[in-house]
C-alpha cells in the first residue's frame, strides 16, 4: 500500500473524514488503476471526479480532436482546446487538477486488436463511449480480464448506468438482440454530468468496498421528470459474452 503524503492527507481531508473512506480507503484509491474509454460527455465528469478523488492511475483514451460542437457537454475541453486532441486536452486538465496522480492519455481508436493492450495492468474499465459496438468490446474485455465494467449512456435529458462484475452479475450483452442503427444523438451537458457522476461514484465505491453497487440493476434517469427508475436485469445463461463465467 502506498503511504499518503502530508500533501495528500490535506488534499483529501474532507473525504478521509468519511467513515467509509478513511486513510485506508484513500490508500486504496491511490493504488487503484482505472481505464476510462472516452474523453467526451461522460469521460469529462468521470475523469474529473476520479482524478479529484485521488484514483492513483487514470488511463484515458479518445480518438477525436476537440470540436466546437463538443463544448456544450464535454467540460474537460475549453474554447482554446478546439483542434487539439481530446487526449492532450484531458491530460493537461487532469494533471493540473491533481498533479499527485498518474494520468496517461492517448489518442487512438479502441478496437478488438488493441483493447487488451490498452487495458493491461489496470483494475477496472469505465464506459464513456458514444457508440454501442465499442461498448460491447469493452464489456467483453472486462469479462475476459475478470475486472469490473462501469456502464453509462445518455441521450437528450436521459441516461442510464449499470455496474458489471464478471462471474457475478448480468453483463451489458445479456439483453442483446442484434445491432441497432447508429444515430447522431441529441444531448444536453447536464445529462452526462449526472450519469458520469453516478459511474464515478460506483467506481469509488468499488475501490473502497463500500455500499451497494448497481449490480443487475439498470438505473434509468430522466432529467425532465427528475425520476430515477430501476430495472432488474437477469444474467442470461446463453449470453455470448458472459455465459462461460460463473
Amino acid at each position, binding site marked *: 500500500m502506498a503511504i499518503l503524503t502530508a500533501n495528500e492527507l490535506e488534499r483529501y481531508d474532507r473525504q478521509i473524514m468519511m467513515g467509509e473512506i478513511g486513510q485506508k480507503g484513500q490508500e486504496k484509491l491511490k493504488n487503484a488503476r482505472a481505464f476510462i474509454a*472516452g474523453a*467526451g*460527455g*461522460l*469521460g469529462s465528469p468521470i475523469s474529473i471526479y476520479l482524478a479529484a478523488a485521488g484514483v492513483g492511475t487514470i488511463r484515458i483514451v479518445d480518438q477525436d480532436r476537440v470540436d466546437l460542437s463538443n463544448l456544450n457537454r464535454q467540460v474537460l475541453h475549453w474554447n482554446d482546446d478546439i483542434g487539439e486532441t481530446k487526449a492532450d486536452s484531458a491530460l493537461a486538465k487532469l494533471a493540473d487538477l491533481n498533479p499527485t496522480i498518474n494520468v496517461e492519455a492517448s489518442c487512438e481508436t479502441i478496437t478488438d486488436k488493441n483493447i487488451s493492450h490498452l487495458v493491461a495492468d489496470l483494475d477496472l474499465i469505465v*464506459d*464513456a*463511449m*458514444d*457508440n*454501442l459496438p465499442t*461498448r460491447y468490446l469493452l464489456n467483453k474485455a472486462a469479462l475476459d480480464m475478470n475486472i469490473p465494467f462501469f456502464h*453509462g*449512456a*445518455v*441521450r*437528450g435529458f*436521459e*441516461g*442510464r448506468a449499470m455496474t458489471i462484475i464478471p462471474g457475478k452479475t448480468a453483463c451489458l450483452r*445479456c*439483453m442483446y*438482440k*442484434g*445491432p*441497432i*442503427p*447508429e*444515430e447522431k*444523438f441529441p*444531448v444536453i451537458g447536464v445529462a*452526462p454530468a449526472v450519469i458520469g457522476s453516478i459511474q464515478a461514484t460506483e467506481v469509488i465505491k468499488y475501490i473502497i468496498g463500500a455500499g451497494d453497487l448497481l449490480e443487475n440493476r439498470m438505473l*434509468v434517469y*430522466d432529467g*425532465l421528470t427528475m425520476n430515477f*427508475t*430501476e*430495472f*432488474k*436485469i*437477469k444474467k*442470461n445463461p*446463453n449470453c455470448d459474452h458472459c455465459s462461460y463465467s460463473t
Partner: protein
Amino acid sequence: MSIKVHIHKTHRQSTDGKEVVKTAGNSVGECLKNLVETYPGMQDVLFEKNGKLRNLIEVYVNHESAYPDELKKAVKDGDEIHLTFMLAGG
C-alpha cells in the same frame, strides 16, 4: 383485466402524448397488439416489418427485464409494462 403500458417520451407522439396506456392480454405480445390497435403508430416504433421486436426496444414487466422472448412473457391483471430503448450516447 388491465395491464398498464408505460410509453417512453420519444414514442408518445404515437400515443397522442399519453404516458400510460391501459391494455389487455395474457402476454406482452397480446398487450402490445392491443396497444397498436388503439395507437397504430406504435407498430412501426416497436416492430420490424417482419413483426419482430426492434433490436433497440427494451421491455420490462414490473420493472424486470422480459428478455428473451419478450412477446411471449405472461402478464396478469395489474402488471405494468415499461417500453424503453437502448441508449448509445456518451
